[in-house]
């Protein structure tokens, strides 16, 4: 079976969930070979093996942290060339993070391949892997494939279930010689985000979001309390972010995160097309809005027309009571 290269997104050896989902998809089209770079790369191997990686190619060098994107492209290209020695890989899969997409795109140019970004599903096809994508704020679903070279495909979080599928996961060091361009963009400093203790927005099973109706940074407590009672992540509309009430990292929508949880609760959000673009594919949608005409109600499974300052605290209390 042909190899499928899977680029590993990890933080100091802790593999992020979307990479495990990629391994599930990779097994549909070939044998997953993981590529883990940077500090902690080797520590990823055990988890990757549990989820189906037959091999884990690892490399660490200061360049990966000190310069933007290009060193990682050099390494992924080295992995691609190593894999090509034994026949052409079936695909290169990369998680659809901002950085992942840029790495994938530059690799695609170098190896003369077409690229598909933000796939939400992947199947084997007669002419190579077929990717499902959402278009026009998730109002269309398309099926596409790469018609030249080894398909390079980036996949959104929550596109497949994480499955245990033990495999060898043999660690092999990858030799990387950095290109002259690798040191072009220096990362002068890096400030890690503080952890809130809540689930990651893009990975959470439940998301509770607040919008302009929340009317102030201090009022976001109400949204957070509901989220915490449900074990949910907190999201915000752009209006709330622009007003400075909540950090931009929590923005849901076209220019924020796109989420596809089991349950999405929107409070004080009107449902503009750019917001819908980031949450329309959620399985169950609930909204609280005092305007019965708000477009968000076109999407909901359950909607409450009312004041969020009344409805949300009452809901939180009920959730806590029921959970005992």
């Amino acid at each position, binding site marked *: 079976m042909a190899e499928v290269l899977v680029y590993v997104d990890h933080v100091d050896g802790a593999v992020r969930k979307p990479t495990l989902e990629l391994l599930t998809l990779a097994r549909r089209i070939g044998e997953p070979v993981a590529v883990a770079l940077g500090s902690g790369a080797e520590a990823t191997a055990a988890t990757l093996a549990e989820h189906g990686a037959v091999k884990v190619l690892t490399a660490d060098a200061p360049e990966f942290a000190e310069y933007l994107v290009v060193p990682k492209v050099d390494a992924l290209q080295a992995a691609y060339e190593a894999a090509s020695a034994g026949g052409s890989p079936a695909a290169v899969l990369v998680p659809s*993070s901002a950085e992942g997409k840029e790495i994938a795109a530059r690799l695609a140019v170098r190896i003369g391949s077409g690229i598909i970004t933000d796939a939400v599903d992947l199947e084997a096809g007669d002419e190579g892997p077929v990717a499902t994508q959402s278009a026009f704020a998730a109002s269309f679903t398309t099926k596409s494939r790469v018609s030249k070279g080894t398909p390079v495909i980036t996949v959104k979080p929550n596109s497949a279930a994480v499955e245990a599928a033990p495999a060898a996961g043999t660690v092999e060091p990858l030799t990387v010689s950095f290109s002259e361009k690798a040191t072009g963009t220096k990362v002068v400093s890096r400030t*890690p985000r503080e952890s809130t203790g809540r689930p990651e927005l893009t990975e959470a099973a439940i998301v509770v979001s607040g919008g302009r109706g929340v009317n102030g940074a201090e009022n976001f407590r109400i949204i957070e309390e509901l989220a915490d009672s449900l074990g949910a992540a907190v999201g915000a509309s752009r209006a709330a972010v622009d007003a400075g009430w909540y950090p931009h990292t929590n923005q849901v929508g076209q220019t924020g995160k796109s989420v596809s949880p089991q349950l999405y609760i929107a409070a004080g959000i009107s449902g503009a097309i750019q917001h819908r673009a980031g949450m329309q594919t959620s399985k169950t949608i609930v909204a609280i809005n005092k305007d019965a005409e708000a477009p968000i109600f076109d999407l909901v499974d359950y909607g409450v027309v009312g004041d969020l300052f009344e409805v949300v605290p009452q809901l939180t209390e009920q959730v806590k009571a029921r959970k005992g």
Partner: protein
Amino acid sequence: MSLRIVVCVKYVPDATGDRHFADDLTVDRDDVDGLLSELDEYAVEQALQIAEEADDAEITVLTVGPEDAKDALRKALSMGADKAVHVEDDDIHGSDVMATSLVLAKAIEKTGYDLVICGMASTDGTMGVLPAILAERLGVPQVTLLSEVSVEDGTVKGRRDGDTASERLEASLPAVVSVTDQSGEARYPSFKGIMAAKKKPVESLDLEDLEIEADEVGLEGSWTRVDSAAERPARTAGTIVKDEGEGGKQLAEFLASQKFI
């Protein structure tokens, strides 16, 4: 020496319109009004601010697109850009990101540049990868997805707010930059700006001018294929209740019935 800035702007169907696909599965650009992608207005704005700081700078706005795409150029010119380049050729229709980036890279090289500025993503394709591809094709540093950007003494600096960290970046010119919608509100064109834009030069280029063969671009020259596009079924109408004091409780019952609590 003058700082030559090229801003890549895309003409896109209005996101609030009824966007759909044409029969050949390309984005339908006829039935929905087009405009300068809002996310590229941020790129024009940052170009204008960088030019204001520089002693001597010239901003060229560049688009690859059909005849109507001139509207996007006019808007950028009326915001304050100095001149425009429009690459138009029937053979470009249906180009994917690899083909489009090839055309843009050639046009940028022909125009001459120290700094290329793009938006974070197009509002129709929403890939967000073209700036990185341009940097790869042009062989210059990429300084992308910036929420803050400045240029001083031949160095571009910026802040990139990522998923897990916020980074300060630095690169020497020439370079390719992309800016996010966090970089600062774009200005509205003034009446004076709109009048002035009418007299600003718009250069038209075709594939031959850029020495690109027809089979390198368009549907045929693209490295990806769209096999089908289907409208998502509308969501089935849900239950909507008016809060009469029990709204939170009713909602909790619904969530319990769906096994969320």
